[in-house]
C-alpha cells in the first residue's frame, strides 16, 4: 500500500535509530513532547520507544480532543439527546467517555437515541432520512476536524435542512501548547508537532514557539518512520544550536496550510472567549462556537443547555498526564480504579489517550518484553 508501507520499514528504522543515537550528547537528557494523540497512539502501537536511546524521553501532550472534553459537556450532550425526537450523533471515541452520570453508551442503553457516525456527513444523511426528528452532531476535534464540520453545516444550509444542528466542542491547538510552555512543571527540549492539524493551519503559527520560547518544533507524520525522522531532525537542530519550525510531513502538510479549510471554519464559526479543558482549566480563545449567521444550526441555541460543571474526582490526575507532567503509570488510580473497562478519566477512554495507549500497548517493562519476544 503506497504511502503507508514504505514508512514502516524496519531496516530504515534501525538506520534512523543508529543515527539518532549518534546525535545525542552523552550524558544529556532529552525530553520531547508529542502534542498530538495520534502520535501517542503510533508510538505505542509500533513500540517506537524501543528504538530510542535511554536518554531520549517522549512526553505525551494534550492533543487528544476527546481527552480534554470536561465531564460537564458530556452531561450536556446527554441532556440534549434525552429531549423528545432528538437523534444525537457522535464519533465512536466519545461513546464511552464518562460524564457525571455515565457515558453516551449508558444513556443509549437507558433509551436515548445516540448513534455512532464516521463522518459529519453521515449525520446529515440521517437528518435527510428523518425529517420529523432533530438531528444533532456532537462536533469534537481540533482544527483538523473543524473544516469538515464547517463544510457539513454549509451543506445543510445549502440543502435547506431545518432539522440539523451541531453541538460545537471544537478546540484549537495553539493555546494548549502555550499553556504547556508556560507551565512551570515542565522542561521540554522540543516538540513533535501535530501533523494533521498543520494540514489546516500550516506551519507558520508555530513560529512563536521557536522564536519566543527557543524550542524547536518539527511537524511530523503518523507513520513510525515519520516520527523517528522528526526526532532525528529535532536532535540535529539541538546539536547545531538551532531553534526553528521544520516540516517533516511535507508530503501532506503545505507550509501555508489549507486556505479553503480556514475560510469555511471562519465563515461558520468563531472563537469563544474561554472554554474549559479537562485537567487544564479555563483557557481563553481556545475553542470554537457557531456564528450568529448560522444560529439555526447551533444546538446551543436550539436547546436549553444546563451548562453542567462536574468536578473531577480528586484522585484523577488526567490534567497532569495531559500536560505531560506525569507518566500514565504514575497516576494513583491508573490500573486499579481507572482501567479501560472502568475509566475514571478521559485519558483512559480515548484510543489516543496516553493512559489508554500505555495500558493497551506499552504496559510492560521493556526488558521483560524484549526477553519474551527474542527469538
Amino acid at each position, binding site marked *: *500500500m503506497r504511502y*503507508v508501507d514504505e514508512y514502516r520499514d524496519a531496516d530504515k528504522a534501525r538506520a534512523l535509530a543508529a543515527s539518532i543515537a549518534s546525535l545525542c550528547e552523552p550524558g544529556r537528557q532529552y525530553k520531547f513532547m508529542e502534542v498530538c494523540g495520534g502520535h501517542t497512539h503510533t508510538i505505542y502501537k509500533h513500540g517506537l520507544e524501543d528504538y530510542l536511546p535511554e536518554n531520549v524521553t517522549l512526553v505525551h501532550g494534550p492533543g487528544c480532543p*476527546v481527552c480534554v472534553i470536561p465531564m460537564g459537556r458530556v452531561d450536556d450532550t446527554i441532556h440534549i439527546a434525552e429531549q423528545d425526537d432528538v437523534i444525537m450523533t457522535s464519533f465512536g471515541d466519545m461513546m464511552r467517555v464518562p460524564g457525571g452520570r455515565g457515558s453516551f453508551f449508558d444513556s443509549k442503553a437507558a433509551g436515548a437515541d445516540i448513534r455512532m457516525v464516521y463522518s459529519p456527513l453521515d449525520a446529515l444523511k440521517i437528518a435527510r432520512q428523518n425529517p420529523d426528528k432533530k438531528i444533532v452532531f456532537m462536533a469534537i476535534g481540533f482544527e483538523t476536524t473543524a473544516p469538515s464540520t464547517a463544510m457539513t453545516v454549509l451543506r445543510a444550509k445549502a440543502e435547506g435542512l431545518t432539522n440539523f444542528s451541531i453541538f460545537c466542542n471544537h478546540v484549537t491547538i495553539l493555546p494548549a501548547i502555550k499553556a504547556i510552555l508556560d507551565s512551570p512543571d515542565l522542561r521540554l527540549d522540543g516538540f513533535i508537532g501535530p501533523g*494533521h492539524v498543520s494540514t489546516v493551519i500550516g506551519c507558520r503559527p508555530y513560529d512563536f514557539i521557536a522564536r519566543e520560547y527557543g524550542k524547536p518544533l518539527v511537524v511530523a507524520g503518523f507513520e513510525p518512520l515519520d516520527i523517528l525522522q522528526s526526532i532525528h531532525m529535532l536532535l540535529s537542530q539541538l546539536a547545531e544550536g538551532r531553534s526553528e519550525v521544520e516540516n517533516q510531513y511535507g508530503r501532506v502538510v503545505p507550509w501555508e496550510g489549507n486556505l479553503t479549510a480556514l475560510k*469555511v471554519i471562519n465563515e461558520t464559526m468563531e472563537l469563544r472567549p474561554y472554554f474549559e479543558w479537562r485537567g487544564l482549566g479555563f483557557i481563553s480563545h481556545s475553542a470554537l462556537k457557531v456564528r450568529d449567521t448560522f444560529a439555526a444550526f447551533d444546538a446551543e441555541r436550539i436547546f436549553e443547555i444546563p451548562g453542567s460543571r462536574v468536578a473531577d474526582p480528586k484522585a484523577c490526575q488526567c490534567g497532569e498526564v495531559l500536560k505531560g507532567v506525569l507518566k500514565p503509570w504514575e497516576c494513583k488510580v491508573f490500573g486499579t480504579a481507572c482501567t479501560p473497562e472502568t475509566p475514571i478519566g478521559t485519558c483512559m477512554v480515548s484510543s489516543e489517550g496516553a493512559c489508554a495507549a500505555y495500558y493497551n500497548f506499552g504496559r510492560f517493562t521493556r526488558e521483560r518484553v524484549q526477553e519474551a519476544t527474542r527469538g
Partner: protein
Amino acid sequence: MCLGIPGEIVEILPDQPDLAKVDVSGVRRNINIGLITDDDPQPGDWILIHVGFALSKIDEAEAKAAMDFLEGIGQAYADEIEALMESRIE
C-alpha cells in the same frame, strides 16, 4: 481522531463534483473533496482522508524527497556496517 489515511482518487463523480470515489487498498469510498478544489484533484492523485473529507493532496515529489533522505540514512548505516565488517577481515 487524528485518523487520516492516504487514498487514491479513482473517479470524480460526474453529477456531484464535490465527491470523488477513492480507493484504499482495494476498498472504495466516496469522499468529499470540497476542501481541496483549489488543488484541482484528478483521478490518479493521492489524497489524505479524514472523517469523510479530503484535507490535502499528497505531494509525490515531497514523498520521494522524504524517502530519499531515509534511503540516505539507510545507505550510510549500511556503509558503516560494511566498513565495520571489512575492518574485521584480516
